[in-house]
């Protein structure tokens, strides 16, 4: 009887006790199958060890980034209340004087997702009397310009570059009892600064942008005397042209437009700065 592949691998990695290793050595002397297995496995592991010592090239890191973002595309991430989080009362030092501490913000509830790691804080700005959301993640792709949804209230919010979103109208009591989820964009496009001729006052130019996953949009740049504008039309989503309604978020600096559009419908956006990049995200 041959040793199992697992035993042979453990033997190669010096992870067997001496009597077991001795038995394997004895077997290897007479068995060409197991000898061949060990030789190949050793060659392979040596080769992998050497490869692991090398720095990963930029092209590979770029691929990793794309693959990760593709995996998140269109994904709904459920959030669960973070239990038993007891916050300590604020520390009142002698230097603070007798003046009583009054907080400016109140944490209404905190929710989180394990995979990927995201925390959502539902906050109330007591000075402004306004509620807002704060998404926290060490990966900005998970917190900036993503959609936070409360399905039972049919409410949706797009966060800004800092992961914040303002709630225009308040929330019902006990927001932790609501269903909270994050919807990742189906597709993300980034437009680099426009190159334009300042002498021309009226011009238009079309650009087709496409992701590896075959999401395709047409962006029309229009320079008019009253300002510069882009309009966006969605051509394909995941290779399909029958995609129904799509929510589009266009943002530049901290100004954004968020709108439902149909196929063939155009979404216009007034540029804040022709020298700054524009971020376009499609949600479905």
């Amino acid at each position, binding site marked *: 009887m041959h040793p199992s592949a697992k035993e042979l691998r453990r033997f190669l990695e010096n992870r067997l006790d001496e009597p077991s290793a001795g038995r394997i050595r004895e077997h290897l002397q007479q068995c060409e*199958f197991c000898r061949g*297995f060990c030789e190949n496995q050793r060659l*392979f592991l040596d080769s992998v060890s050497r*490869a*692991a010592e090398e720095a990963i090239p930029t092209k*590979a890191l770029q691929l990793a980034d794309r*693959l990760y973002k593709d995996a998140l595309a269109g994904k709904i991430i459920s959030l669960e209340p973070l239990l038993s989080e007891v916050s300590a009362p604020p520390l009142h030092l002698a230097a603070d004087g007798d003046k009583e501490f009054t907080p400016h913000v109140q944490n209404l509830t905190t929710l989180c997702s394990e995979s*990927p*790691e995201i925390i959502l804080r539902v906050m109330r700005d007591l000075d402004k009397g306004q509620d807002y959301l704060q998404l926290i993640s060490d990966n900005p792709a998970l917190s900036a310009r993503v959609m936070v949804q409360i399905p039972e209230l049919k409410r949706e919010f797009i966060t800004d570059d800092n992961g914040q979103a303002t709630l225009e109208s308040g929330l019902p009591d006990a927001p932790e009892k609501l269903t909270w989820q994050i919807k990742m964009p189906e597709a993300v496009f980034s437009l680099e600064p426009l190159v334009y001729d300042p002498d021309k006052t009226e011009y238009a130019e079309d650009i087709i942008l496409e992701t590896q996953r075959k999401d395709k949009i047409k962006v029309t740049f229009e320079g008019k005397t009253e300002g510069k504008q882009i309009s966006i039309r969605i051509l394909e989503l995941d290779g399909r042209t029958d995609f129904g309604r799509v929510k589009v978020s266009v943002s530049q600096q901290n100004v954004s437009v968020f709108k439902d559009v149909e196929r063939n419908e155009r979404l216009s956006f007034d540029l804040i700065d022709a020298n700054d990049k524009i971020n376009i995200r499609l949600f479905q």
Partner: protein
Amino acid sequence: MLTLTKKEIFAIVKGGWRRGITTCSGLTMTSSISDSCGRIVRAFLISPLNRKTFDSFFKTCYSHTLGYLRYLKAKGFQLPLEHRSDGDPFGDLAIDLLGTFLRSTKDKPFPIVFDYFKKVGISDPDQADPDDIYHHFTLLLRGHIRQQLSRLKAQQDPQIDHLKRRFKEILIAPRFGSMQGSSGEECLFLIQHSRNLRGGNRSQARPSTSKLPIPYDELLQIVERAYLKSTSRTAWCLNIFELLNETTEYQNLVKKHELLAAIVSVNAKYIDADGLQPTGLPTAENALLMRDIEEAIAQTLVWLGETVLSGFVRKGRINGDEAERFRAASERYLSDLAHTGETDPIPQYFREVMPESEHDRYLSEYKYIFETTINDAVEDFKERLKKKTTVLKYRDYFKDG
């Protein structure tokens, strides 16, 4: 020692606890690649969308892909490397291969990885042994690489080709005999059994002792049992025929292409360190699948004889004997395709069924007819297979195969 359980990931989420995730960098054999990388793969399986676990997993995939490509090159395999002045050909090929390995679909992140681990029964990676996870990971990754390389080079898997050739060399030794089976296929037997053959060509087997050919799944069991009691390839081949001879309800000779297919399959299960992908199908389902495949092959051969081949005979392009030989070649081709997912080049099947005197006339007289026959057979076989219920269940599994 690195551990990363659900509980720990949750602690990271809460921000109260942090721990770095090691990569395989700097590991030597003695520090156990399988344990360290197994833990990285396990962390990824538990939490694939965690950026840190994904990045560590990607690095592991990259170093293993690069390492495996160099290993294949060292073993003498031809790789489709593009030598560009600005790049590393192995690194570029590794990037291409990982692009397909870690591709996500609209509904599922990393389906190749997750479907495979589900298929091999690791549904709760938290509880699984990192060593086992690593073993399955390398099987999956290396199998994927070889599948993609075959596709890029538009040819069969070099490992399987190599393995078949080695066994064909053993099976032409004088102690093994060869004869044409009832439908023209090449059958092998042990010379010492030639006086007591239980089937095959009627002139060599007595009708009273004639038995049915052994079904493929039973042959597979015999090949596996023979492997377990052998320590060399020659001994393995001899033991197969000895066990076959002891199985008195069937013929003690075997179709050559079925024998090679079974050897490839058992080799994948026990010996091959290079990641031939095992089917991972439970035995009962495997048997049902085999039955469906055999049925589809039989139906295709009937259809082929009644339509394609009889059409060529009617037009005078081939005679009845040649039609029968082409039918036998089609059976071999389909059987190789179905059982191993790989085939020899088409002219090889022609040479196996036709007399040597006709081999030189392949290009001038037979190429069109023979290749049309094989291609029509493959198309018909695939169509029939698509309608089989057992196969339908695995349609995604077979889609890229």
